[in-house]
């Protein structure tokens, strides 16, 4: 029971999920930084720039930080356990 709770709070995702999360966060932040600069310059408002960047970061955290099930669609297939070794272990 406690290990399940621990697993939940650790928030592990599988490797394909990790790659996707990294891609999403990079593309998202790059796009929204560029957009906030362009909009702020066009409308001449620094406040707008940073509000846009802030809200986009919050939305990104909701999309990326929790271990959603869609990031656990490709769990690692471990090999079956090999039989016991008869040699002495170091």
């Amino acid at each position, binding site marked *: 029971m406690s290990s399940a709770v621990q697993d939940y709070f650790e928030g592990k995702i*599988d490797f394909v999920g*990790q790659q996707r999360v990294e891609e999403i966060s990079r593309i998202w932040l790059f796009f929204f*930084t560029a957009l906030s*600069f362009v909009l702020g310059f066009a409308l*001449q408002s*620094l406040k707008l720039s940073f509000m846009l*960047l802030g809200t986009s970061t919050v939305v990104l955290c909701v999309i990326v930080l929790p271990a959603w099930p869609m990031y656990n669609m490709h769990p690692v297939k471990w090999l079956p356990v090999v039989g016991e070794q008869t040699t002495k272990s170091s």
Partner: protein
Amino acid sequence: MRESTVHQTRLMFIWRLESRVTVMSACRALIHLSFLDANFQVFLRFHTMHSFFTRVNNVSALLSSCTMALLAAITIASLLQEAIYPPQIHGQISMKPVKVFNAKAPRQRRKQEMAFLNFNMTADLTPLFTWNTKQLFLSLEAEYENAQGVNNTVVLWDRIVRRPEDARVRVIGAKNKYAFKEIGGKGFSKGAATNASYALKYNLMPYVGVLRYGEAARISDVPFDVREEL
């Protein structure tokens, strides 16, 4: 003896096969990526297991880099804007001759010559307010050369402007905020310059970027009118 060494070599070989994939073997394995499935391919590039805090760390690092890039872009945009469209500020100062009295100020030990201004000033500083302007610091400065040949610049009046609505400066009959004394020399009447120039200077403080200085208005050769003692 020979049998045990062969046995040990076999042990080490088995241990290597069963150990986790290291970076070195990953480089060698990358050559054979075509027949591995998607999961194992990705495993070769990440060799630690992600947790919630790893993702928090990564996202915050990316966010820091993006924020710094945004600030650098704003700075460069402001520099380019100033270079391509330099703001043309025109202002007017008019001043009556500056009266100099020899009197003792409160909390001072001895008498000193003090000059008193009475000036009108208008300037329109709205072109200076861009998206990157935090505030303007305006100062009226007197420039003169005293008997020792030293150039003095004294700030006599200042104002902080935070909004473009307040950027139209219009003062009528204003007096100097700060005492105007000739401290280094012998006072105004004994060999300091007979006249001085007065300039309205501004200091633009941006949110991000370099401070900018400029001059909005200037009046030259205003005489000092030294009066008798009070």
